[in-house]
């Protein structure tokens, strides 16, 4: 926190003699203020001689400005017409939309005027353009944007200014920058704090917002017991593996890739894209399936959605209907193996209810929802019956009883196009009509554990 301490010292010096213009004091100020001045140098690149608070500054115009952006600037200045700040971004975006061009645009704005006229509008425009350039998750870009504010001008100098929201528009603009950071879940760093303190002083609204971010974000950062990484695996098979292990609820499950995606050439010579099939099953589920009554069918239901941040993947489930109580078979437990008479050296049944007191009863007074057993799950590139039949065939190798059990497919009516996993996140307004028309069918028929209709 050296920078912060130097900052405070320099501020104190300024408080003592705000209007002193002696060269001696200027030297003192320049020495004291070198730390943050160097920050300013590195970001803007313009050689600035440090000035006293109300003195003018001299700046060096030797730094070259990119020619594409410079030419139009001069034209604009000559015409004295209003140049919208979106224009700058659009022109830069024609070449490429990435962090480098975004930074270039900000630098051009910084170099244009040392007083940074119109910086509030520029920052608002930049905030809107950030998602297009793909930099909304980059903390260095936010710091660069905060650097656009002229330093020390907005710091209140007495209690009246502090009371009356000194430079409210600029404070609101900085709060907007921090709010966009908050919306994307990006933690600010110490450079953000130093910048905010330099620009608005330690008691303004932006610094308070920063303090709130730094208080609440660490508390909620690890609140998710099932965290999803920001960078999901791109390969569909890896993604299927990740999501299946996530929903499996069992540590003993085994993931099997029944088919990798490949291009098949049929007899007629046309190429057909075969999808991937990834299945998951645990030994407990295998045992349950082995005990399944062959007269009852098993159902392949799906596709059910699973959301991982912004992507939705679909999985299919092999399950059976719940067994009615009259047909429930009581398992025969050998009293020598299980129960109070079991062997004490190799116990199969352990009653460890000792942590609960005699009077404690933490069960809820509700009937358990009767549901059928789930035997396996899978994710496939296409949701049609042929692909899923291949999955069942693959499952049959480890569960031979499947050969004798009738399998019924309860899939969604109509061809269901799965979302392409490599597709970037759709912007919120786009193709809503297509979704809406498809939505009513999907929404009305979607029941978590399928209705009574049987589709084949």
């Amino acid at each position, binding site marked *: 926190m050296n920078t912060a301490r130097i900052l405070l010292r320099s501020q104190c010096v300024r408080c003592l003699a705000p209007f002193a213009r002696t060269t001696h004091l200027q030297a003192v100020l320049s020495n004291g203020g070198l730390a943050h001045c160097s920050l300013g140098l590195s970001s803007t690149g313009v050689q600035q001689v440090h000035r006293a608070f109300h003195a003018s500054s001299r700046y060096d115009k030797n730094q070259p400005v990119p020619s594409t952006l410079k030419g139009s600037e001069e034209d604009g200045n000559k015409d004295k017409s209003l140049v919208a700040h979106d224009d700058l971004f659009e022109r830069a975006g024609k070449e490429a939309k990435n962090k480098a061009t975004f930074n270039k645009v900000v630098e051009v704005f910084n170099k244009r005027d040392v007083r940074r006229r119109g910086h509030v509008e520029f920052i608002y425009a930049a905030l809107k353009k950030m998602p297009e350039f793909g930099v909304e998750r980059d903390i260095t870009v936010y710091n660069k944007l905060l650097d656009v504010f002229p330093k020390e001008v907005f710091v209140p100098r007495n209690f009246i200014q502090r009371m009356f929201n000194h430079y409210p528009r600029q404070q609101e603009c900085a709060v907007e920058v921090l709010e966009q950071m908050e919306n994307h879940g990006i933690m600010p760093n110490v450079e953000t704090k130093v910048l905010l303190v330099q620009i608005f002083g330690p008691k303004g609204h932006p610094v308070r917002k920063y303090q709130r971010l730094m208080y609440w974000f660490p508390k909620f950062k690890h609140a998710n017991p*099932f965290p999803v990484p920001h960078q999901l695996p791109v390969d569909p098979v890896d993604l299927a593996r990740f999501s299946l292990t996530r929903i499996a609820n069992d540590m003993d499950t085994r993931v099997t890739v029944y088919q990798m995606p490949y291009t098949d050439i049929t007899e007629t010579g046309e190429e057909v894209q075969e999808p991937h099939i990834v299945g998951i099953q645990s030994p407990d589920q295998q045992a349950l399936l082995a005990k399944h009554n062959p007269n009852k069918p098993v159902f392949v239901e799906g596709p059910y*959605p699973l*959301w991982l941040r912004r992507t939705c993947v679909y999985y299919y489930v092999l399950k059976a209907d719940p067994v009615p109580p009259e047909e429930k078979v009581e398992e025969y437990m050998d009293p020598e193996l299980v129960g109070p008479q079991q062997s004490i050296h190799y116990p199969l049944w352990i009653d460890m209810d000792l942590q609960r007191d005699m009077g404690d009863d933490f069960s809820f007074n509700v009937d358990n929802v009767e549901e059928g057993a789930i035997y396996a799950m899978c994710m496939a590139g296409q949701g049609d019956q042929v692909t899923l039949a291949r999955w069942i065939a693959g499952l049959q190798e480890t569960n031979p009883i499947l050969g004798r059990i009738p399998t019924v497919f309860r899939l969604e009516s109509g061809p269901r196009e799965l979302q392409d996993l490599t597709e970037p996140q759709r912007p919120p307004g786009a193709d809503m009509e297509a979704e809406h028309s498809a939505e009513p069918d999907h929404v009305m028929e979607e029941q978590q554990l399928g209705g009574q209709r049987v589709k084949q």
Partner: protein
Amino acid sequence: MAASRTGRLLSARLLGTSTKQLVWPSASPFWSVPRRGYWRPGQPRERKWLWQRINFDFAKGVDGVRKNVGLLKDEFLQRWVGPEGKPLLEHMLEQTRVLWEFRGPESLNQWLVSSDREIGGRSEVYLKLGRNNNTCLLYGTLCSAPPRDGETRYSGYCTMRSEQLRASFDRKKHHDVSSFNTLHLRIRGDGRPWMINIGVENYFHHQRDDIYSYFLYTRGGPYWQDVKIPFSKFFLATRGRIQDDQHCLLLDKMNTIGFTLGDKADGPFQLEIDFIGVCNDPAHTEDFAYEVYKRNPEV
């Protein structure tokens, strides 16, 4: 200024009743509609007098009298069995209580469902009973395109909230869960993060939008998920903005509980709830998870 410009996450209101008409901010007599609630930009600001708001209908009056007298009779007779009809021993010794369960269509009447359609958005949300009338299914589509009214900036939320308990003659009744310290839910989501909002009974007018919230992370998948959240983890937020002065959620007058989805991922969603209960975890001794002292550190 900033608060009016940014869109706020509203507490759930029944579709259609949030269009409260407002009068002009000039001095208005006390019998006209007071200025409150959210005014959707573009709606006409009509002036409705008190007698225009009340529905004077004979059939409705008869129904109302019948219902309220029945409730009053219950209240008089239930106390001979025990508090609120529960035997006294059960009330004293219970360690878990089921607050809401979904057995039958009348259980859905206790819930209000709302989405950002009220502010002009395009999300849809529906509530229905799940399979075998045992669970409830909250499903719909989320769309985070903000409404183009020049004022709202963020959009895309769907909520479900329990209704306020009513005693006879529309008096407010509260849930008293002071002998418990953990909220227990049995849900089956699709991997989306939800937020649980608990509304409590407040004394001051300024506290009317105070909601205690915490996150509900669903795993997704076909298995039921038991979620246990201690009440000490709920933080205080007003109109969606987390507050600086935090205090513990007081359990003796809980009014409503709600679930909100606003995770900016456009597309269909669903949440299946089996039951909502409270239990007492004796191992949990925390009073409050967040700092209560004044936090205004000097830089």
